[in-house]
């Protein structure tokens, strides 16, 4: 059951990743990328990391990609029929890339020892909320806080750059 789901998610994830790259329309590409993220979340959930899975959807699919899509849609109008035809190279990419990636997966799979390597693998740490909290808020608290300071610096910098020049408080 779990391995069926895993392969389902994996194939969908790879397929949507290919579609992301080959889509002519930036909006369609973004939508495919969201689908890719959702499938990645599925894989995370199968790997006993529900917290990570939910955060993948909540943050990447739900927040970041929405903003991306938002900006893309603002900048790009709908694709007109005459723009929809594909370029020859993209057709080649569609033909070549899926088999290539399938081959890579196959090689990796064989190298790791077949089906059991994936379905039977249990991570050392279970990805529940408690486990993540233990790691972030106890063991690596300092690093976690430092990273938040770095992010704060980034936010302040973005705000400073985003302001109009004459309004800069120190000028």
């Amino acid at each position, binding site marked *: 059951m779990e391995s069926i789901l895993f392969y389902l998610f994996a194939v969908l994830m790879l397929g949507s990743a290919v579609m992301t790259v080959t889509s002519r*329309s930036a*909006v*369609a590409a973004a*939508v495919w990328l*969201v689908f890719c993220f*959702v499938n990645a979340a599925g894989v995370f959930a199968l790997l006993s990391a*529900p*917290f990570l899975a*939910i*955060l993948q*959807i*909540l943050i990447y*699919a*739900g*927040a970041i990609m*929405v*903003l991306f*899509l*938002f900006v893309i*849609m*603002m900048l790009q*109008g*709908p*694709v*007109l029929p005459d723009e929809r035809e594909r370029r020859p190279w993209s057709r080649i990419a569609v033909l070549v890339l899926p088999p290539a990636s399938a081959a890579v997966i196959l090689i990796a799979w064989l190298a790791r020892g077949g089906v059991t390597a994936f379905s039977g693998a249990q991570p050392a740490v279970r990805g*529940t*909320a408690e486990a993540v909290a233990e790691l972030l808020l106890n063991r690596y608290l300092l690093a976690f806080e430092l990273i938040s300071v770095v992010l704060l610096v980034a936010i302040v910098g973005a705000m400073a750059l985003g302001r109009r020049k004459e309004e800069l408080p120190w000028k």
Partner: protein
Amino acid sequence: MELVVSSLLKIAFLLTVILGLVPVLIWAERKGSAFIQDRTGPNRASVLGIRLGGLVHPIADVMKLLFKEDFRPENAHRFLYALAPFLVFFIALLTYAVIPFGDFIRIGGVEYQLVVADLNVGILYVLAIASLGTYGVVMGGWASNNKYAFLGAVRSTSQMISYEISMGLSIIGLMLIFSSLRLTDIVAGQGGAIWNWGFAMQPLGAILFIVAVFAETNRNPFDLPEGESELVSGYHLEYSSMKFALFFMAEYTNMVIGAALITTLFFGGWNIPWLTRSVIEGHAGTILPVHLVIQAVVMGLISLLFFRRAARERDKFGDARDREPGFMGVVTALMALGAAGSFALKPWAIGVDAASIYATLLQVGAFVGKVVFFCWVFIWVRWTLPRFRYDQLMGLGWKVMLPLALANVVLTAIWLAIV
């Protein structure tokens, strides 16, 4: 296999309740707004003269929408245009998976949890799915290739992102108090006295959450994405037929989710104050007869009212509609008789298993009742408050609700550390 069957049954139950609630809510919206504005509201559509106070109208609406022309604007993005309404509706339904609508039901000695998926990150799941809801709206708005629809989508997106943050932060206090992300734990923690309910422990969080839920569902006073006066009707402007109906139903489905979440997180979920499961099971022989008597008396009174009206308005319309009060009187009288007649089954001598099921039913009923009440609150608020201006909306979201939610988190944490 048993897991699959029981899950399917639970899903079927939830879908029945929710999809059944949608037309009722549409009716309540129309009738409620009418009564608030001193109008009669819908009362025309009838089946053999039976109008059920306008409840036939949603059915007629569905028939109308089914048979309407399903057009697609020129230069719309074919795929996304078709996908958007399904996505909106699908995502709206997904959230129900983690909402516990009852404690458990014991059948044949086996206890079944009354929740489809009891995730240990249930609250986060709710938030994650809710954040995906934006996609349907933004896709629909963009793929329609209409500037008003797109503006509606843009507004919706920014509004949802803004209020999602306050929404997430407003329930962190609750998570801290119940020290769980699992919704069943949170509901179970609210059992017993009414001051155990979330809104009593987290009054600020409750208000913030309710406001944020209103904003997330795009309901008045936060219905700027629809903004009839400036955006024609917002992101679903170019949709017709069942595609439009899906958007419309998704709005009401979201409303039911919102009500269910408010109930689950802050109003005790399926809990009945003081009447815990053990109390109900222990005194089922008293509670059930009282329950039946109340039901019989209330239904009897209602049927009397209908009969009185039937006598008074014998020839009001001169057509099939004149038979309606009499029919309703007969139906309600039968319900009263049914309640009275069940005394023949000796409800005071109820068995242990039956008492357990009765307790479950009461709890599920309490949950549904609370959800329906909060749905009515959605409608009630919509027809009371005016719409926000866009800058006011953003100001409220970022400058008022976000700091308040953060303060709520900090204060709750400090309080928990002290206690």
